[in-house]
């Protein structure tokens, strides 16, 4: 069972709610994913479309809200968004995102750490989105982050776990849960992260933009479960040379002395 900030999760798949073609598809995909926590963003109300309200499509009895601070370019903006998110959702949970560069959307490590320190003081449950930097993971953990969310690849790229080596070190060292976030473009990527020992993954784009998002949500659910089970079952060691799977003894037509060896 996954526990973050004394809250238990049966599912190790968190789902983002962006980029879905319709609210109805999003709703069905979340149900299919069996996820218990979904991310949401804060934006100005579109005064031309006052009825466009995502809250009417999400059942908070079933899924916990994890508001993000997407759009924040520095610590100050992230803190402002965090306070608004708490007022809007009545939750202390927060995915902290500080992305100064809109081209790469890579997180600013310095301002992410600063904002984490401040928001922990303000009693938020902070899950910072971070580059896959093992030292930064330790710094964020020491600052009071409830989990760390290293990226596999830049947001929305579907490039998979490009940071495997660093994520392995983060997992090895972390005392808080490690949630691999961003870049996961296929169920196999999610499975790989889970096999490596990640505590959970967060997937948005790969589900939302799939040909059939609802079925893709199911595929991710299965991949995360499979990867987790594999991790718990412990993978065999790797080898650079072949190790036969079939017995080498008793082969037909081989000389007796070979068999005796």
């Amino acid at each position, binding site marked *: 069972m996954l526990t973050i900030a004394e809250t238990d999760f049966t599912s190790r798949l968190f789902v*983002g*709610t*962006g*980029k*879905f073609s319709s609210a109805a598809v*999003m709703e069905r995909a979340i149900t299919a994913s069996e996820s218990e926590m979904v*991310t*949401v*963003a*804060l*934006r*100005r*109300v579109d*005064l031309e479309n*006052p*009825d466009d*309200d*995502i*809250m009417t499509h999400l059942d908070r009895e079933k899924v916990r*809200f994890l*508001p*993000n601070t*997407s759009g924040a370019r520095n610590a100050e903006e992230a803190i*402002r968004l965090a*306070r*608004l998110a708490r*007022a*809007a*959702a009545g939750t202390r949970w927060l995915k902290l995102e500080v992305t100064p560069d809109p081209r790469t959307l890579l997180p600013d490590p310095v301002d992410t750490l600063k904002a984490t320190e401040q928001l922990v003081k303000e009693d938020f449950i902070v899950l910072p989105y971070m580059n896959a930097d093992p030292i930064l993971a330790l710094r964020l953990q020491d600052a009071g982050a409830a989990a760390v969310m290293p990226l596999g690849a830049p*947001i*929305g790229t579907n490039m998979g776990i490009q940071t495997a080596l660093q994520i392995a070190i983060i997992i090895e060292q972390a005392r808080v849960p490690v949630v691999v976030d*961003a870049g996961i473009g296929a169920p196999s990527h999610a499975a790989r992260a889970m096999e490596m020992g990640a505590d959970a993954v*967060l997937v*948005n*784009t790969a589900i939302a933009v799939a040909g059939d998002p609802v079925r893709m949500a199911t595929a991710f659910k299965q991949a995360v479960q499979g990867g987790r089970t594999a991790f718990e079952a412990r993978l065999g060691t790797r080898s650079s040379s072949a190790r036969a799977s079939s017995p080498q003894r008793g082969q037909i037509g081989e000389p007796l002395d070979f068999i005796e060896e």
Partner: protein
Amino acid sequence: MIDSPCQGKNFYGKNSSFLFYNEAVKPFQPYRLSMKKLQIVCNGQPQEVPPGTTLARLLEDLTLPTDSVVAEINKQIIDRDQYATLKLAQGDQVELIRFVGGG
């Protein structure tokens, strides 16, 4: 007799008392000014609202629900229980924010 002082000329004709329509106070036009609409900026768009408009009333006029919209006025988050009593002021920068899909 002073229920609608902003009617101006008619009011002057009906009531000769300069207590309510006095040349000395005319430059200030206290009643006329109070009926002037307030200019606010809501989500970046300039808007005019009648004086005394509460935040709850603004949301109602915009057909927005009070339970899922959070309001920030001049960068101060407003508690939901203040929506009904908080009156907007001239020049207020109002941000009305809600959750949208995001990752």
